[in-house]
């Protein structure tokens, strides 16, 4: 008799399980987007993956089961499978920072992070910052008070970079903050107000 398969152990088929995950995720067409980004997304030259697709992800303190392709970026998983559309894709190639999330307290471009590499790590997105009753994180509060966003598209990334900075350096100088935030582009040019927000949040956190 051969070894039992994973499906036999868990009691229902893998295919069935994936279908349920997708259905419960309430997001459309889980597998419908491209996973390598829109630029140069032809299949040509793509390596075949031998990675387990159904994985557990710890996102915003919740463990969620999700079907992930081997070459799938975290931004795609978050936006299109977990419905967390607050994480924005501005360039999908690590140039703009709009997709910044925090993984184990460090800021990452989620467009350039393979989802499979964050298994067993803690992912924090913009949706996970506010408190249980919706109270804003000090950075979010400070960004509102300083009217830091303009169009708002880069804002989630700016917020996440600021949070990661304050985690590691709760009392940054303005120059240190500027350097830490420099991976986040803002075409509206709202940089000075974002910096005001970072400094205000730092003051509040340290008060």
């Amino acid at each position, binding site marked *: 008799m051969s070894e039992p398969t994973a499906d036999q152990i868990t009691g229902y088929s893998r295919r069935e399980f994936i279908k349920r995950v997708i259905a419960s995720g309430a997001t459309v067409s889980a597998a419908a987007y491209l996973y390598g980004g829109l630029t140069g997304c032809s*299949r040509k030259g793509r390596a075949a993956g031998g990675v387990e697709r159904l994985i557990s992800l710890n996102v915003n303190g919740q463990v969620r089961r999700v079907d992930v392709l081997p070459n799938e970026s975290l931004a795609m998983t978050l936006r299109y499978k977990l419905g967390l559309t607050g994480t924005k894709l501005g360039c999908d190639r690590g140039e703009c920072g709009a997709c910044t999330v925090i993984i184990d307290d460090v800021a990452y471009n989620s467009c350039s992070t393979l989802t499979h590499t964050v298994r067993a790590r803690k992912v924090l997105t913009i949706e996970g910052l506010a408190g249980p009753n919706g109270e804003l994180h000090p950075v979010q509060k400070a960004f509102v008070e300083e009217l830091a966003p303009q169009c708002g598209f880069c804002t989630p990334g700016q917020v996440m970079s600021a949070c990661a900075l304050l985690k590691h350096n709760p009392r940054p100088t303005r120059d240190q903050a500027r350097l830490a935030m420099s991976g986040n582009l803002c075409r509206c040019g709202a940089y000075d107000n974002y910096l005001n927000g970072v400094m205000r949040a730092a003051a509040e956190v340290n008060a």
Partner: protein
Amino acid sequence: MANFKHIGKDFIPHDVVAKVTGAAKYAEDFRAEGMVFCRLLTSPMPHARVKNIDAAAALKMEGVLGMLTANDIPGEPPGFAPSLTNEPLYVGEPILAVAAVSEQAAQDAIDRIKIDYEPLPFTFDPLESLFPGGKDARSDGFNIGTLQGLEPGSIKWSAADFARVKAGEELPMGKPAEEWNFGDVDAQFRQCKVVYDERFVTASLAHHSMEPRSCMAYWQNGKCFVHASLQSQSFVMPGLARRLGIKPEELVLIAEYCGGGFGSKGSDYPSMVIPAYMSKKLGKPVMMRISRAEEYYLGSARNAFQGNIKVGFDAQGKLLAADVYVVQDSGAHISFWDYRAFGEALALVYQPKAMRWRGIPVFCNAPTRTAQRGPGQNQLACIMEPLVDRAARELNVDRVEIRKRNNPVNGSLMGGQEGKRGPVTSAYIKEALDKGRARFNWDERRKRSGRKNGPRVTGIGVGQAFHPAGFFGFDGLVCLKPDGKLHIHTGVGNLGTFSHSGTSRIAAEVLKMDWENCVIERGDSRRNLPWNIGQFGSNTSYTMTRTNYVAAMDAVAKLKEIAAKDLGGKPDDYDIDGAKVFAKGNPSKSLSYGDAAKRAIELGGKFDGHELPADINPMTQGSAKALAGTGLVGVAKDNLPVTGQPAAFAACFIEIELDTETGMHRIVDLVSVADCGTVIHPKGLETQIKGGAVQGIGMAALERLVFDPQNGLPANVGLHQQKPPSYLDLPTEMFTDAVDKADPSNPVGAKGVGEPLMGASAAALLCAISDAMGGHVFNRTPVLPDMIVNQLAGRQQPRKPLSINTQ
């Protein structure tokens, strides 16, 4: 109006919290039941004819649902950019779209499509197209044309025009497409103490909105629903409906948030109809995500210039005469009229006694261009301001002073053609310069000019710019509900300036409402929005304060009429405050707003929107009718007096340290001041001033589009290559101020804000670089480190004075 309750005070706009929590939904964040995806096949060639499309194998692939080509979408008028084309005019122009159950399947299918292209001649130099027999960008016989007032046509200059000048060094000035003049230009030049006759180039730069223009559409119950990235709301409806072949009332447009536009999303644009046509064909919702590279193809860019500028000043630094010729590189399709704005801005900002302007917009095989923040005016600031400094140096006049000697004042004339020039409603640019001068400590700081610190040299610069700042005649719509809340309906759009709310506060001001009791209705055409112009052209603060003022005044009149009906006396016996309409002689004789709204519904007719003014736009009629019976409806067209052209100005002061070894520079300090009339929203203004300044820094010294002259390929289609300014390109802190003097033609004194702020900082930085280099003027944007190093080393520049696009 005085003693404002809301105007000039900060508030928290309703949409800012959604922006910091990620709850704000942009076009790509929406989903619809059964949604499928489409991808574009874009041209690999700068100009070609599609002879055959072989998609048979691709369309049979698993998951592939259908294809759209140019033949499936009605064409645009001659010269205008199509959504899909059989004659691509630049690398990246969309040829067809494929829909599939997944983006991957759509892309796989596109990879299988075989297109037979016939390569056609292409050009990146307008002067090449103007040369007799020279290559044209298009094969329809048109090499010129522009939005509004210049139909596509063809102009070729004569061989003699070219023979007169040294190629690449001087501008052959053949027949222009348009020209105007006033005064005796030759006579004025003879009076001048100094005259400069210069060739110049301003490069094209992309808008690079952070949100690529993804779009989702579906059809339901006979209506087309479009989720799109747009600066504007109501203004988009007629144009988008036309593109879709439907009536505006059959279109539902959701554009609550827009991730940046800067002019590139001001109205309907070609690519946004592709998902709607695909959806119609398939009977399913279609999402079209746009990549960053594609955004460089579809997202447009600023028009580039080659030109000749001749200016003459008298001994005191007064500009007596100007003679300008602007050759606009318009990209592949009909574009905006930057070249006109260049001349008009010169005529206004420096008030020459005589001026001649000539211009010609020429097509070339670069992606479609459109208006970008200060289109034309900001190129003028970049070219003219360093020349003003040159005159100041030569004539030994202070650089701020020379500007003030030329600046317009209230009522000064703008426009070009003699006899057609009209007054500006207000001009406080001198005051802006004075305010900035004091704040920047110009008089002390300019003494540091040229100070050396190792290889670093200090440069001090001042710059100024202008943009028209308002429109007239649009509609306002408010509704006071029985619960006492005021619903302010605004169709202006959400560019990210928060002015949709800032200008709505005028309605609250007029009705003396607490802001907590006001609800802004916007962002979705189902929210009964009035006809408003788009959020572009630095107009919102002016135009929308007028519309909201007239709508609220209409509501006030109706409140007083209802009070007179119910409580006796005449409407004039009543006043409003504290959410009540009350008798002036006896404030206890009163009616709350909520009760007045109930009475309005009982009375019907004009009070609750069942009878409407005849002069409002059909869109406003429809929206007001939909509100009829739900409260007291205040609705009116802006018929307030028109006394001139509103004009916004800005002044900027910059200190830099220029590294003479590397050509790099660091901004030490920046102060920017706006002349935008009465300040409506201080925090919003501050962030606009800074944002404009940041973009100006990119325009002056960082950003440009470059194309490979041999194959026509774009050399930079990424943010990293295009270099929009980052945190590290700015000073650690930026300073802003406003003149805060009321414009007399606006009920609250407001006028537009945004565009000149970019031109002023670009000019100030260019002037600071010039100052650090002992007054050298490059006559080109952007000024790049290699240009600086070459100049300082006394080496020849690799770019000829008129070379454009390919370096």
